[in-house]
């Protein structure tokens, strides 16, 4: 294994974290979306991460996104008979997004993204220094 593998590992982490930021963005964007029934209401989505090739002696372990799961928390119901989407009982269904949880998730993703970019930078510096040994 060489320093080159670090680019793959940190690169996989950067793309995973940017996907996490994307889901956070769509969750926050749809925090106020409403629907006429509970099934079509927006549900908060989150990525599921998994380590790639985590064996006992594997030194380089990247990360990938297994998939995106939707939160099964109940959609908040609001009584609003004047709403164009309201059902017969005059109810509308909001998104089950928790803005506080999304914001903390966003900060966590941002920190991880920064860390991995720093790892990339350090690996690059080390490789450049290795190339100039003996010059």
């Amino acid at each position: 294994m060489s320093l080159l593998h670090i680019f793959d590992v940190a690169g996989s982490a950067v793309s995973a974290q940017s996907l996490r930021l994307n889901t956070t963005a769509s969750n926050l964007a749809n925090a106020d979306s409403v629907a006429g029934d509970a099934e079509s209401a927006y549900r908060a989505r989150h990525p599921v991460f998994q380590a790639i090739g985590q064996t006992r002696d594997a030194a380089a372990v990247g990360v990938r996104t297994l998939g995106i799961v939707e939160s099964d928390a109940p959609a908040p119901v609001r009584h609003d008979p004047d709403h164009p989407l309201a059902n017969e009982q005059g109810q509308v269904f909001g998104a089950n997004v928790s803005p506080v949880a999304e914001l903390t998730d966003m900060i966590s993703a941002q920190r991880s993204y920064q860390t991995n970019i720093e790892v990339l930078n350090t690996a690059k510096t080390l490789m450049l220094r290795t190339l100039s040994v003996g010059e």
Partner: protein
Amino acid sequence: MENDKLFGIHAFAARLRADRAGVLASNLANADTPDYKARDIDFSGLMEQVRGERLGLAKTATAHLPVAASGDTGELAYRVPLQPSLDGNTVDAHVEHAEFAENAFHYQSTLSFLDSRIKGLIKALRGE
């Protein structure tokens, strides 16, 4: 090995440092992966092992096991978490970050040793 005479322990140390950088980068990459267990290379243990090899462990009986080949990163150890998290992940980003920075620094100092060795050799060859 001829290389060993030229570069001493530094060639092995540089390889071990590069491998360790990879392991620590994997830990940082998986800081948010559920059930991922942080791992590390036992650097000082492996260096001791190589030093013992260089001094030459004598095999006085046929039943003696050979010392592991140098350059082998050996078994990766699992880090003992300071604060276990609910999702089974044992990566502490701050610890890994500090270890990664320290490892990069040591890698660079090993490179300077190699660099000055090569420069000395070139000087000797030129006879300046």
